[in-house]
């Protein structure tokens, strides 16, 4: 029987996650010859990150494209995907996303009633500062830096030396403007869509980690589909990963030139700075590798891909 699946996400339609959802919808409707249809509910219509994840778990939302970081309190191995300075490039991310090591990390979701069909990306994370650009590793010291509220990010940014501040996302713009915050670690699409470039003119392309999203489906829903439908969904999920990830890479290039045009000072970090950052955060990576074999295996696979 034909089926229509409700896919919710928590971002505006300009965000890469919406692009991921649209790519998947088009691919699956083509692969299944219309037997599987996707109805997209953008912009938190069916709930924010947490509710969408719970919704897929309970079966009240069929599918979602949702930040993986929200899942690390449920499946700790998920932290593998965002360890600092482990994945070097979008090309490497696209390869890792479909690797057996990544699938092993995602397998932990099944006992919570969810299947991760694909790992997309929402944009590599960089560093935006208000007063001056960060050139040397000492420049990070004490900067009030907004981080997403997550243990891994806290550990990472403490190691870097900033004053990690888990301020509410909605207050970041005005906090940067007034000086309640000095900096934010963020992706270029958000700098653009949230207009952070109006209040912070220095962006260092530190690329500390990616901001991956899972394409999740409720397990019972998936198991109830016909074999052909399942195959079409799997195929559509797999084939959209590389194009989606590389589209974000292209988008980043475009945004860099646009932001430069708006007077934002964008700097490539020096090799010394990157080495220093890697060195400072290495103990964090090692500590998390000890936490779970899936994390250790993922890091090993990622390091094989580094030049």
């Amino acid at each position, binding site marked *: 029987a034909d089926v229509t699946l409700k896919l919710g996400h928590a971002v505006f339609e300009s965000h890469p996650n919406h692009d991921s959802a649209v790519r998947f919808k088009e691919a699956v409707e083509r692969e299944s010859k219309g037997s599987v249809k996707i109805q997209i*509910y953008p912009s938190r*219509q*069916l*709930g*924010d990150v*947490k*509710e969408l994840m*719970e*919704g897929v778990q*309970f*079966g*009240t939302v069929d599918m979602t494209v949702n930040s993986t970081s929200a899942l690390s309190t449920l499946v700790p191995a998920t932290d593998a995907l965002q360890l600092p300075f482990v994945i070097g490039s979008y090309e490497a991310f696209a390869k890792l996303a479909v690797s057996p090591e990544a699938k092993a990390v995602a397998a932990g979701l099944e006992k919570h009633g969810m299947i991760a069909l694909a790992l997309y990306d929402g944009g590599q994370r960089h560093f935006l500062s208000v007063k001056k650009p960060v050139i040397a590793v000492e420049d990070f010291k004490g900067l009030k830096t907004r981080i997403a509220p997550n243990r891994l990010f806290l550990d990472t940014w403490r190691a870097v030396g900033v004053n990690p501040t888990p*301020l*509410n996302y*909605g*207050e970041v*713009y*005005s*906090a940067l*403007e*007034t*000086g*309640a*915050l000095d900096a934010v670690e963020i992706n270029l699409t958000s700098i653009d869509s949230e207009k952070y470039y*109006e*209040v912070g003119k220095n962006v260092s392309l530190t690329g500390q980690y990616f901001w991956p999203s899972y394409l999740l489906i409720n397990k019972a829903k998936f198991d109830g589909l016909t074999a052909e439908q399942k195959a079409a969904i799997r195929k559509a999920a797999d084939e959209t990963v590389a194009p989606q990830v590389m589209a974000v890479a292209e988008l980043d290039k475009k945004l860099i030139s646009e932001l430069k045009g708006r007077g934002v000072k964008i700097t490539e970090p020096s090799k010394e700075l990157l080495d220093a950052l890697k060195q400072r955060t290495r103990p964090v990576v090692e500590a998390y590798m000890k936490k779970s074999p899936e994390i250790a295996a993922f890091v090993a696979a990622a390091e094989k891909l580094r030049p």
Partner: protein
Amino acid sequence: MVWLLSVFAFTILMGIPVIFVLGISALAYFVLTGQPQYLLVIPQRMFAGVDQFILLAIPLFVLAGALMDTGGLTRRLLEFANAFVGRFRGGTSLTAIWGSFLFSGISGSAAADAAAMGSVLIPDMKKQGYDVNYAAALIAVASLMDPLIPPSITMIIYGALSGTSIAKLFIGGIVPGILLALSLTAYAVFIAHKRGYPRLAPPSLAQIGRLTLTALPVLFLPVLIVVGIRGGAFTATEAAAIAAIYALVVAAFWYRVLTWAHLRHALIATAVISSAIYLLIAMANIAAFVFALERLPQNIVAGIQHLTDNRVLIILMVNLALLVLGMFLDVAGVLILTVPALVGIGAAIGMDPVHLGVMVTFNTIIGFVHPPLGLCLFIVSGVAKSPIEKVTMQALPMIGIALALLMLIAFVPELVLFLPNLLVK
């Protein structure tokens, strides 16, 4: 959708509190449309609706207002205003307006304003020969300045629902607030001359100095809030906590009037008032889920665009629809149900989000003073011990003034946007 609306209409006519009407309608929708799997969404949506940092400003500003009031800070504010405007004809009615204006800078809610001003001023004005219904009506309509002038609980709710910058909304409300104060002043002066209301003896310069000095710590609070936020010490939400602590310290150690009973009363009032607002937001978040499932906001936007693409007509229709809804729902209820569609309409006609937000705020708060649900009318008629119909009759011309101002703001965006554009890059 038909199910939802019929249960909604039926339960609201039964007089069931709006909080429960929203939840019962959504529950009935899930059951009657054969989608019981969504029952698990009810608690989830309720939790998510209120688990928002920005909403913490509500209890904190309510607490600041309660401490101001029980700590006697309100009275000092009024004496200060009186020293300057009391000498004109209808002096105490002008004190009501400008005292309320000053109070707006420290309080976040019109209801707090109406209760505070009403309990101090209505007895005074009655003694001086004012028509008690007029006094009550004036104070009720003046209390609308409170949610226009920062801080404002209504704007916090609007910002949280729409994703509009609360800082910009706050600043955008200042000019409309001042315009309301000025037009009410003109009306009060007119009435005072017509009915021969008294002027008060002007205080001596020394008295003015003394009253100013006494009121100084209260007048300093808005300055502290603005400087603290602009200086990066705290965010708009955190400012609410600073305001509460400041009010506590001033009442306890400067004026030395704060007792344990005051504190107790203020803390409990805060919990209870915030609880009612939080539950309303929680329940409305369930209804919002139903609307999303039914794609209602998109359909409304499409419907309006189908009807007309005339910008002026759309803005008029939006305002009319909001005013009508305001007759059945309270302010937060109107906002919660309409903001998703409003944001869509605003984007479609290219209206600035801050302009839209201030216009919608102004429109919905008029619901505080128009029948049948006008909360501030209930409060002042309670204080005045006068039937609400009589107070409403006196309020009608002033509601007319507020509506005229609303139209001015709707079609002259510069009135709203001038200050935020000047102050916020």
